[in-house]
């Protein structure tokens, strides 16, 4: 339900546009907030219908195709919620505590958000998150 806290054992996927991928490697820019953003937009994998990672990836590829201009080199980064929260809390200058909340949308039921990244710390938060990417897959089918 909207506003539910996503538990630490679960996973989220972040869409990484082609402009944030260099030679196949996802750069920190993929996890950077804009000033107007209240949270970093992600998708909750355990909320998808796909029974396994391949199914989840396929479902997200279809979703991205309906919402975004997906470049050939765009990727999706898979993150573990608990790992991201631990990394940022333990290694950020002011021990930022992140929360990952479900942000249900009618056309995107798994939509979620990573809250708690300070805009003035967006680069260091992005670098820390980029260091704990578990897997990455093409964003285009």
């Amino acid at each position: 339900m909207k506003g539910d806290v996503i538990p630490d054992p679960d996973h989220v996927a972040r869409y990484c546009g082609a402009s944030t991928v260099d030679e196949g490697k996802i750069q920190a820019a993929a996890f950077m907030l804009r000033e107007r953003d209240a949270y970093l937009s992600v998708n909750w994998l355990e909320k998808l219908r796909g029974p396994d990672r391949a199914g989840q990836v396929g479902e997200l590829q279809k979703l991205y195709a309906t919402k975004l201009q997906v470049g050939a080199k765009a990727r999706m980064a898979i993150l573990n919620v608990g790992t991201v929260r631990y990394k940022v809390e333990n290694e950020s200058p002011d021990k930022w505590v992140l929360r990952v909340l479900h942000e249900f949308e009618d056309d995107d039921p798994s939509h979620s958000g990573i809250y708690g990244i300070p805009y003035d710390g967006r680069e260091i938060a992005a670098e820390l998150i980029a260091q704990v990417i578990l897997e990455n897959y093409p964003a285009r089918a």
Partner: protein
Amino acid sequence: MREEATELSFGRYLAAKKAVAAYGLSEKFEEEYVQAVCVGYPRVSGVVPDVSIGQGGSMATQQPPVADEQSAEEIIWRLRIVLPVQYRARLASRLRELQKAVQGEELDSGGIAVGSLRNFVELLKAHPALRCPAVSVTPDRNIYASWKSGADRVFSIHFLPDGKVRFVIFRPNDKHPGQAIRLSGTATVDVIIGVAAPHGVLAWASE
């Protein structure tokens, strides 16, 4: 004289590129055009530094840009001349790819922020010993450059369009093995290397 000749050559490059696109010709246009210039294609001014410059070509193709309104395309073109030969072609190719990606991702996007791109190129020009960084674009369309060696050696610069930069440094804590020092801050593009150098970043960011 050299600057004027470079402006004329860029004007001809733009005109020729539009013609290529209009007629659906070669996808390797930039490579072929540069080769044509280098082998002394008739009536085209050379753009190689320290080579005697001649004039030629039709006045109709001369489109010198206004100095304060350089486009991203022109900045990418110029870096082929001003940056180290070791990586300038590769970087130009990467920046063109990024420009297309940014324009493709947002329908009303003008591409990479020109001021940010200009400041990025100026930094590399001022510090030719720096290695070619990994380059990406932020959601605000600014250049983000990173030099990394493992998870504990990171030097990244976010180039804002107004000459300011925001930077991140991760480096090992030499007195406590296994621990890292993590810094972030703001500076200006003309001082950032001087600010970062005492933290040892040049050990992995330069040749």
